[in-house]
């Protein structure tokens, strides 16, 4: 829900930059309209800064970097769509990431690692995200290729109740510990993982701490878990 | 020497035949114990100061109020000894009580009775046996049993590791030590310590004192083999694997505290002195003065013996703060593939050299 909201604001700002301002005005919800206005002001200031800053190398590096990134993400997205048409939902993927259905993520990741065009041999980071109170959880993979020196971000969202994502531990060895940590913090089950148990918290800790709706348990083995610092008023 | 003279002074009375002998032995044992205690304090102070100087520190200094550590930290070793004596003496509940209590004494006995054959000066030797050096080598291997007992009885995995390692290490380093002593005995053809030292009097090639160190290149090699395997026998770096701080915390001595730990500590320093004493007298001319003519009265003899031993102890301390630690299997390689073959060749070499040079 928040993602397409962000999408809405981005398009509105781009159109407003070209000139017709009323696209932002006719957004009904007051909060999003103010956010869009703020984003517009920022974009304008950004544009001015780019213009008057003569030094080409800084900026071009920055923009080319994002241009290169865009192409990498786009380029990989196109590649994937040819191979697995039904798994990638195109509309959600932006220049920064590729959205994938969790169903046969294992096959896609094997392809990403072995295909000579991608060769993503190093899984940089797995980040678990809780998108909102009732909305679903999301797992974001940052992959990087040591040979091609390019990076891509892949997001897989899964429902909050039974969050199941296939484990990539057999493909990238570090997936083992990253997935255990994401399971520890978000309770996302990674199917096919060797021994999925908590890595940072004690094994018998209840609840998933980084979820937005997480209540700290009262006592742990009889020890009171302090919530707020009392005791020294 | 002292034991025989004491027996002359106290004629064996008919009533208790052995009593004078026991009194004589006690009269010798107590001064040796006092000597070890005083020497250990000096050695601990030396180690503290030398290690600090090596590491750009000043070591224990003693300004300030109260007994602090007096000037230049001289009282620091006394403070350490008092601390160890006064500290609570914990025996782990699951430890094997009898062996746990017995272990430190066996280790100390191993080092203590070796002092009786050390030639401090021409006249000052507890018991001038004709098998002096053989006796010392035999007795100093008693310490291993104590360490194994300590490791096994404290019922803790780490001490077991430490005990097994030290058993392997000390037993295997006895062999090169004994083989290099064989090279010495071949030349001096006597095993009594005084005899070995007497052999080393006079000059060789005009200016060099006739120490066994110089008069034969192979005994020069035998000295280094003996000294380094002596370092290995006292569990000093680079062979301090039994009580490796970074792996086994304190090896066989992890569970000990208070007075018992002090005994282990004391026996380590006593062992160091035994090794340096034997090395000094067997290879560096014991109480012989380097200039044969002058300064060879018994008093000076004691000075020469002590200075040579202290120099070797300084070398051991110097080793400790310079070298990293060997791994257990590398330690075995060095001994079995390094020292033993060389010391065997050495014995052969000493014979050939003696035959040719005469």
């Amino acid at each position: 829900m928040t993602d397409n909201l962000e999408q809405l604001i981005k398009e509105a700002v781009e159109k407003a930059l070209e000139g017709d301002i009323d696209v932002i005005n006719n957004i009904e919800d007051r909060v999003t309209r103010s956010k869009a206005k703020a984003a517009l002001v920022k974009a304008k200031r950004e544009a001015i800064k780019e213009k008057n800053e003569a030094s080409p190398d800084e900026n071009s590096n920055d923009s080319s970097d994002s241009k290169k990134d865009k192409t990498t993400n786009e380029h990989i997205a196109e590649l994937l769509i040819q191979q697995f048409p039904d798994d990638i939902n195109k509309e959600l993927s932006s220049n920064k990431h590729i959205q994938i259905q969790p169903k046969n993520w294992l096959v896609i990741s094997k392809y990403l690692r072995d295909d000579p065009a991608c060769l993503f041999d190093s899984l940089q980071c797995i980040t678990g995200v809780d998108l909102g109170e009732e909305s679903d959880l999301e797992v974001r993979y940052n992959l990087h290729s040591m040979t091609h020196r390019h990076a891509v971000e892949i997001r897989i969202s899964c429902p909050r109740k039974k969050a199941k994502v296939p484990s990539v531990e057999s493909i990238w060895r570090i997936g083992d510990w990253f997935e255990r940590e994401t399971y520890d913090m978000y309770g996302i089950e990674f199917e096919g993982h060797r021994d999925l148990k908590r890595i940072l918290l004690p094994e018998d800790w209840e609840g998933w701490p980084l979820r937005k709706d997480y209540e700290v348990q009262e006592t742990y083995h009889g020890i009171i878990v302090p919530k707020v610092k009392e005791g020294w008023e | 020497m002292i034991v025989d003279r004491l027996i002359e002074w106290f004629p064996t009375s008919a009533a208790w035949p052995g009593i004078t002998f026991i009194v004589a032995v006690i009269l010798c044992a107590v001064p040796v114990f006092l000597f070890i205690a005083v020497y250990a304090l000096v050695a601990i102070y030396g180690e503290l100061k030398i290690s600090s100087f090596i590491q750009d520190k000043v070591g224990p200094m003693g300004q300030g109020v109260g007994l602090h550590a007096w000037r230049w930290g001289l009282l620091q070793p006394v403070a350490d000894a008092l601390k160890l004596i006064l500290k609570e003496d914990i025996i782990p509940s699951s430890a094997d009580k009898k062996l746990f209590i017995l272990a430190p004494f066996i280790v100390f006995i191993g080092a203590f009775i070796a002092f009786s054959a050390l030639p401090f000066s021409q006249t000052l030797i507890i018991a001038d046996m004709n098998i002096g050096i053989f006796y010392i080598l035999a007795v100093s291997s008693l310490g291993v049993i104590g360490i194994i007992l300590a490791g096994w009885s404290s019922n803790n995995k780490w001490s077991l590791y430490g005990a097994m390692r030290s058993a392997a290490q000390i037993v295997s380093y006895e062999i090169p030590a004994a083989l290099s002593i064989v090279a010495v005995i071949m030349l001096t053809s006597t095993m009594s310590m005084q005899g070995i030292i007497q052999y080393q009097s006079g000059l060789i090639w005009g200016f060099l004192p006739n120490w066994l160190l110089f008069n034969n290149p192979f005994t020069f090699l035998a000295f280094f083999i003996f000294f380094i395997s002596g370092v290995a026998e006292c569990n000093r770096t680079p062979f301090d694997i039994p009580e490796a701080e970074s792996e086994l915390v304190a090896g066989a001595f992890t569970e000990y505290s208070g007075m018992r730990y002090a005994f282990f500590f004391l026996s380590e320093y006593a062992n160091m002195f035994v090794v340096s004493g034997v090395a000094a007298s067997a290879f560096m001319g014991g109480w012989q003065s380097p200039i044969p003519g002058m300064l060879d009265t018994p008093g000076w003899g004691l000075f020469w013996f002590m200075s040579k031993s202290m120099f070797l102890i300084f070398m051991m301390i110097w080793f400790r703060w310079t070298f990293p630690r060997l791994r257990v299997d590398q330690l075995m390689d060095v001994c079995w593939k390094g020292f033993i073959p060389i010391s065997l060749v050495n014995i052969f070499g000493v014979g050939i050299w003696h035959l040719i040079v005469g």
Partner: protein
Amino acid sequence: MGNYLRNIWETITTMLTGMRVTFQHLWLIRRNNVTLQYPEERWPRPERDIGFDHSNYNVIRSRLHVDIDDCIGCLKCERACPVDCIKIDTVKVPNRGEDIHSIGHTGITANGTKKAMVVSRFDIDMSECCYCNLCVYPCPEECIYMTGGPNSEKHEIDYEFSQYDRNDLIFRFAKKVSDEEIESATSISSERES
């Protein structure tokens, strides 16, 4: 066989170089001794130019200090503290900028702003403080700073403030005045007015 002898030769040479290095240190101890005999020789205060410019003051992160007379009770430092170790209670003053002598409240701060609040409690729990200096930055009156901060002439560097009891580490900077007195002081003047 060659490898065996080379190994021995390498061991001997590297041992001797290692011992040479340690002997050099042993020999030149007087020159490169680094020990600081703590109780007698104190930690030297790093010589640093204490400029008058606020951002260039001498920076030593030791103990927090608050000039309570300048504090206007704006709670900015309390919000900026990442570990919430600053606790401030304020009471409204009937008329701004007026001194209330009964509770030692000065109306005007050093910078000349009129105070609208009496700070009845200003506690910093130094055992909780993480010495990150984030509270010093937003203070409009520059009245909270670490000793060795901008007005460091008033305070020698104080890094020996350990206590035996943890509660003594809670530094109370507010004036030692009981709440009833503050109540009565602030309320009387309002009655007189009405």
